[in-house]
């Protein structure tokens, strides 16, 4: 990013808060960038001649006579094929020691796709993980977050999913990543020999939090270049969106906005939707799929961040440890893929959705039996069978370390039905029972 020649330099700030500065200036437009004492800032409010700027790097030690220069344009990213394989910071500047990327300059946070021009997502994204493929099948053009407590291995699962997915580009938007996690992603991508198709925009925990606000738009501008201009299948990974939302609340707080639930800004829903809705299946074949991470506080999905996210995204993948099998599983109750029916029984086998529903319903019966057990009641024969089934179901299908094909997942489920239940107990359609039932040997 370079400054223009003959710019007017302002040197009199009228107000400074922890995240913003205010000064008198003329001919300034909303959203345009400025440099305040060498730090990048963006116009967020104009009132007559008074202009308020949000300073991404924070306002520590900025004096009232700091130099301010305006750039006359909103944040932008240079896009070209040279983006592939590169690592950038929140401003789109290389952090891998390589040269700046030459290319067309595009404003980030651009307009949305006309809903009428979208296509219905229909391509399956297999991951090998049965908790996802069997119960919560992913489709290209989908947007879906992992809901996980901070101690769950969400970044590992996400990188696994990304590397197994059959996509042309993977774009990582890291917000508040620890340096260790950043290096984890870098090493994983390198190890898989996939660096050439990966583009990363990273804000680590040692960088100012407000900078994070630029990360999703940067990542998605790059994604749109490859998906729209190049008709490629692009997978965008955003981690951790909770830290992004925290940054939003910091800024709105400093701007004296009235907070809504959980001290989040009232516009949280729209702010998050603007990001997630960039996921799209385009008419010319390109697509943007977004897999994000939203960390939870002790599994609380009613907090404003996961709650608003759940209303926006097309489902969620809920990670938790299962004490019975000792594994980390994709929770079948709280997880959901809203687009699964676009591929289930169509791209996948005809018994997919029926097997999925039945296996989850029986798992729910096991949960009831477990409650009974905990309350000190005798278990009946059905309860015992449910509990045994649940343990095997969790180990062989729900655990995140499973890596098998969808047909194998379905066969495994039928095997478990036959092993633990009668045909009537499964409540499956007779037509399917005739074809797939596996009697216990």
């Amino acid at each position, binding site marked *: 990013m370079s400054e223009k020649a003959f710019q007017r330099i302002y040197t009199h700030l009228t107000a400074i808060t922890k995240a913003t500065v205010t000064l008198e200036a003329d001919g300034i437009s909303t959203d345009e960038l400025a440099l305040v004492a060498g730090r990048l800032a963006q116009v967020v409010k104009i009132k007559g001649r008074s202009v308020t700027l949000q300073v991404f790097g924070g306002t520590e030690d900025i004096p009232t006579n700091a130099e301010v220069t305006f750039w006359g344009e909103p944040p932008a990213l240079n896009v070209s094929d040279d983006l592939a394989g590169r690592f950038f910071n929140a401003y789109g500047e290389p952090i891998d020691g390589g040269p700046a990327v030459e290319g067309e300059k595009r404003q980030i946070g651009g307009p949305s796709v006309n809903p*009428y021009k979208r296509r219905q997502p229909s391509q399956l994204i297999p991951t090998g993980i049965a908790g996802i493929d069997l119960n919560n099948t992913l489709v290209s053009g989908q947007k879906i977050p992992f809901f996980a407590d901070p101690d769950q291995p969400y970044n590992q699962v996400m990188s696994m999913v990304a590397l197994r997915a059959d996509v042309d580009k993977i774009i990582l938007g890291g917000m508040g990543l620890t340096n260790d996690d950043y290096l984890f992603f870098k090493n994983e991508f390198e190890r898989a020999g996939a660096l050439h198709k990966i583009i990363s925009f990273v804000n680590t925990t040692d960088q100012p939090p407000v900078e994070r606000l630029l990360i999703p738009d940067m990542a998605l501008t790059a994604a749109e270049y490859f998906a729209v201009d190049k008709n490629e299948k692009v997978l965008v990974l955003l981690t951790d969106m909770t830290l992004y939302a925290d940054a939003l609340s910091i800024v709105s707080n400093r701007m004296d906005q009235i907070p809504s639930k959980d001290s989040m800004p009232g516009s949280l829903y729209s702010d998050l939707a*603007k990001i997630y809705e960039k996921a799209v299946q385009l008419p010319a074949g390109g697509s943007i799929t977004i897999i994000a991470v939203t960390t939870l506080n002790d599994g609380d999905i009613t907090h404003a961040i996961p709650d608003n996210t759940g209303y926006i995204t097309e*489902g969620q993948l809920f990670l938790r440890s299962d004490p019975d099998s000792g594994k980390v599983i994709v929770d079948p109750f709280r997880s959901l893929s809203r687009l699964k029916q676009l591929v289930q029984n169509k791209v996948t086998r005809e018994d997919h959705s029926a097997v999925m529903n039945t296996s989850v319903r029986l798992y729910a019966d096991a949960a009831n039996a477990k409650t009974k057990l905990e309350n000190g009641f005798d278990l009946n024969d059905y309860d015992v069978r449910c509990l045994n089934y649940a343990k095997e179901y969790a180990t062989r299908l729900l655990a995140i370390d499973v890596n098998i094909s969808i047909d194998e997942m379905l066969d495994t489920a039928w095997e478990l039905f036959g092993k633990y239940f009668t045909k009537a107990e499964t409540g499956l359609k007779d037509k399917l029972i005739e074809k797939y039932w596996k009697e216990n040997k």
Partner: protein
Amino acid sequence: MKTTGKVTGIISNLVTVEVDGPVAQNEICFIDLNGTQLMAEVIKVGGNTASVQVYESTRGLKAGNKVEFQGYMLEATLGPGLLSSNFDGLQNNLSTMTGVFLKRGEYTPALDTDKLWSFKPLAEVGQQVVAADWLGEVQEGWLPHKIMVPFAFEGTYTVKTIAKAGDYKITDTVAVLTNADGDDVDVTMVQRWPVKVAIGSYADKPRPFKIMETGVRCIDTLNPIAEGGTGFIPGPFGCGKTVLQHALAEQADADVIIMAACGERANEVVEIFTEFPELKDKHTGRSLMERTIIICNTSNMPVAAREASVYTAMTLGEYYRAMGMKVLLLADSTSRWAQALREMSNRLEELPGQDGFPVDLSSVISSFYARAGFVRLNNGATGSITFIGTVSPAGGNLKEPVTESTKKAARCFYGLSQNRADKKRYPAVDPVDSYSKYLEYPEIVEYLDEKIEKGWVDKVVKTKYIIRRGKDAYEQINILGDDGVPISYHEQYWKSELVDFVILQQDAFDDIDSSTPIERQQFMLNLILEICDRQFKFDNFEQCNTYFKELINICRQMNYSEFKSEQFNKYYEQLRKELSYE
């Protein structure tokens, strides 16, 4: 002369404008941004400063940009050609826009002005007419679209001339009317109406007295919605709000379906765009799209237009109602609209009400719901708008302002339960908490006696009682253990499970089960009640469980079979045999 002004302040999409003349509340203005016109609406005036909410992104706007006020409020364009269209919240036609991305300041006309419509006069020269009276008719696909005296016309007019049958464009004059003062006014096939004002040109609005069939059992059987009635569906995310709404849009027995996608996911609208043209209307055999209008302001589209989208949808509904049509209006989700109101109220620095929502939220919601209803038109014909909105309560907690305000306004409550959704018991409409106030209307009770069978509502009440008793029994069993309660408790519980699995649960993705006609609902409810009326003699609770599981299984196979087909009858016989054992 038009009032003009200059931008003086900008915070996101709230812009303050210094004006040089009179401006009206809710007046529309355009802000010039280097040749691109951004549409905005006045939401507050103080001195010579107007605060306007901009329907587009304000990126790049500067203090000093010029503004021109239009002298009218946000209006809908009403005329033939609305059916099957896809509009944004401001009624721009999405399908005629160029490019993959939405361009700022691109406004496309709602109706095709070149298309010729075959007009047939209905009024005669010399006839006295008032607003909304039918002057003529054009065939809009299958729908006899009435050309009416514009709603804005006050007083009585005399038809001076009326066009002969023939082909006309919507902008051609089809009638000349003379008002009481002797002035002549031209009438075309298109008129405009401010969306925030209800169209009131009808004779009267009686209490609803019919039910609207939806094919969804937990609605039709248990908590039916009246034609011209109102209902709402609150529920946490992932409980099946959208699937239920789509089922209603596909199956409901209505002439015109208007879907307002208000601040929700774009892919859900795409699903409608993609599937509706392919799907057949079960009542008429026509493509579903032929009766559908989509108003789409998805969550990433400008927030201010979200509010406009629900009003635009309601206005189009009122227009078709005035033609004597049965309209079903679905809005998903009214919470997003309320949030849009909150964002704006926040930027205006108004004192907030509960949870930061504006204090008049409740009255805004109830006056919107009040626009629905069954009406008798001036010529004796009837029309209706049935309105069902969804609500997305924060954290799934129903004790929040939008749900509470809506509860006061809507007569049917279809609460989606997280617990049922977790158990994959869909539709997850809670059978205990949900209600339909219409079951208490004597005219509805009478209608159902007539339409289904004498004493139907008593049967519905009894079914609800079985469900409640089953829930009580279940709690007792959980507290005292399987062996700690009499076997009759198990029987009670399993009878409610039978109702749950056979009547309440419905597979929205199964071709047959997804939609159940009312006579089939009657047959199944009678069958289930017959079973529930029996006193069984079980030796132990395990025998009871096994027996009822078998019954449930057979009944579900019946639900999956074509009504009264050979297969259906086979399962029915099997059930009879099972019942005769004891």
